[in-house]
């Protein structure tokens, strides 16, 4: 039995069936199929939630290895592991809405998250000053567009130079929009192609089998 379950063909059949059941409800109005499809999607949610345990195991194993080896930055790994388990324990014991659990959120997660986010401003300003150079006509166009968008984005500009706001809108709703659409469509088409290749067995590595 286990040898059958381990076979690539079994995985492909299950993937193909799941695909047709989940997408079938969009084309055929069969209540039984719809119920089964809903349950299948729900099972994926539950399995995804369980993957947190796997992530916890992997992180613990990796961090403890680095701590044992006294690798570069090992105290941070130790801090990470201690806070993970301490926070999880407090959450299980006192509940996720308890003040004890919230203390971790407000005293650790909030400041660290905020700092990581806010220091980007310094890096971006530094990059703008030191890296953006009009070395070619294309780079010059990029720079001019960037400056217009930056000026148009500043709230005060709209008061004394509303035309810059309009210019920003034009750039973002034409060139930037076109590029964004191309990106979205490319990703979507790529995802469809990958899906078809997985179902037809041409991307075996994606489902855990060697040899593409």
């Amino acid at each position, binding site marked *: 039995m286990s040898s059958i379950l381990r076979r690539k063909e079994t995985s492909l059949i299950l993937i193909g069936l799941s695909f047709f059941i989940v997408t079938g409800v969009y084309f055929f109005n069969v209540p039984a199929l719809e119920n089964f499809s809903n349950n299948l999607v729900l099972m994926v949610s539950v399995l995804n939630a369980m993957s947190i345990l796997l992530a916890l195991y992997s992180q613990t194993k990796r961090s403890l290895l680095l701590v044992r080896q006294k690798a570069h930055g090992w105290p941070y790994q130790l801090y990470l592991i201690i806070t993970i388990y301490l926070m999880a324990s407090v959450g299980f014991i006192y509940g996720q809405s308890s003040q004890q659990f919230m203390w971790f959120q407000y005293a650790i997660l909030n400041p660290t*998250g905020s700092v990581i986010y806010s220091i980007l401003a310094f890096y971006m300003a530094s990059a703008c000053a030191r890296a953006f150079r009009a070395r*070619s006509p294309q780079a010059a166009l990029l720079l001019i567009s960037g400056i217009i968008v930056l000026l148009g984005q500043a709230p005060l*500009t709209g008061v004394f130079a509303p035309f810059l706001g309009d210019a920003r809108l034009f750039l973002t709703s034409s060139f930037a929009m076109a590029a964004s659409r191309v990106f979205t469509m490319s990703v979507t088409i790529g995802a469809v192609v990958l899906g078809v290749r997985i179902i037809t067995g041409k991307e075996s590595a994606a489902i855990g089998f060697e040899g593409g």
Partner: protein
Amino acid sequence: MSQGNIFKTMATLDRRIIYLLIFILTLAPVLNPIGLPIAVTQDTVTFYNYLEDLNEDDIIWAAWETGFSAWNELKAGIIATYREVIKSGAKMVVAYGTTEDNAVFQLVFGDPDQGIRGILTDDLEKYDYQYGRDYIVLGYVLVNEASTSSLARDLHSVVTNDYKGNSLDGTFWDDLHDAGDFSLIIDFSPGMQTNAMIRHWVMDYGVAMIEGAIGVNIPSLAPYIDTGHLKAMLQSTRGCAELEYLTGEPGPGLTSMDAFTLIHYVIVLFIVMGNIGYFGWEKNSKQRVRTAVG
């Protein structure tokens, strides 16, 4: 100082000077607000109009997905938006998109069970907006695309209790079955399940959706405004400040707009200075600095 040296200084400006200037320009206007005027964009007006049109018959799917990182960028919009929701009396189902959103939600709505007051507790009391009757919190249910899709199709198959494990029986949750029962989705997000909600809630059930987006997500979400899948988008801190202005309730957004304006101008100034230095020294210099762009 010779002319060449000035250009060289401009081209190779010490990053510590840049950091210091950014720090001062961010902090000074927060400590001593200048009160620079701001212009309100049409996107924010549209967003505001959706909030203004809410009434007691509406039921909102409120997706809280910011976590703490995006909370700082969008908090002004979140506070202004949900203050309007409370005023309107529309019912609200709250769903989180990250594990941190429970704490973020508590910052804003408090926790009446534990006597914890939030930023909007005064408004909750003023308009008698009560947990269970007017709003319920499902907790962290927007885990991934699969759960978002499952919720859209059959709410009760995924959720039967609220975020504290209390039964939702007897609340307005009983009358809700799928995504089609909601009149509006309000999502504040750095992009967690935004696209999944557009695909499974908006496209499949035609629910109107308005979005509070962080700066980097604006270009990728803008096409959805054009296609009508998103009805309105609050654009980053600036949009949030504009919403505060429209609602007539100044808060952290408008306070930050002085710094926001000054930082934008100083970045433009840095770019211009860097290019003057480039053309005056770096371009012809043997000590030319290799840089990333251009």
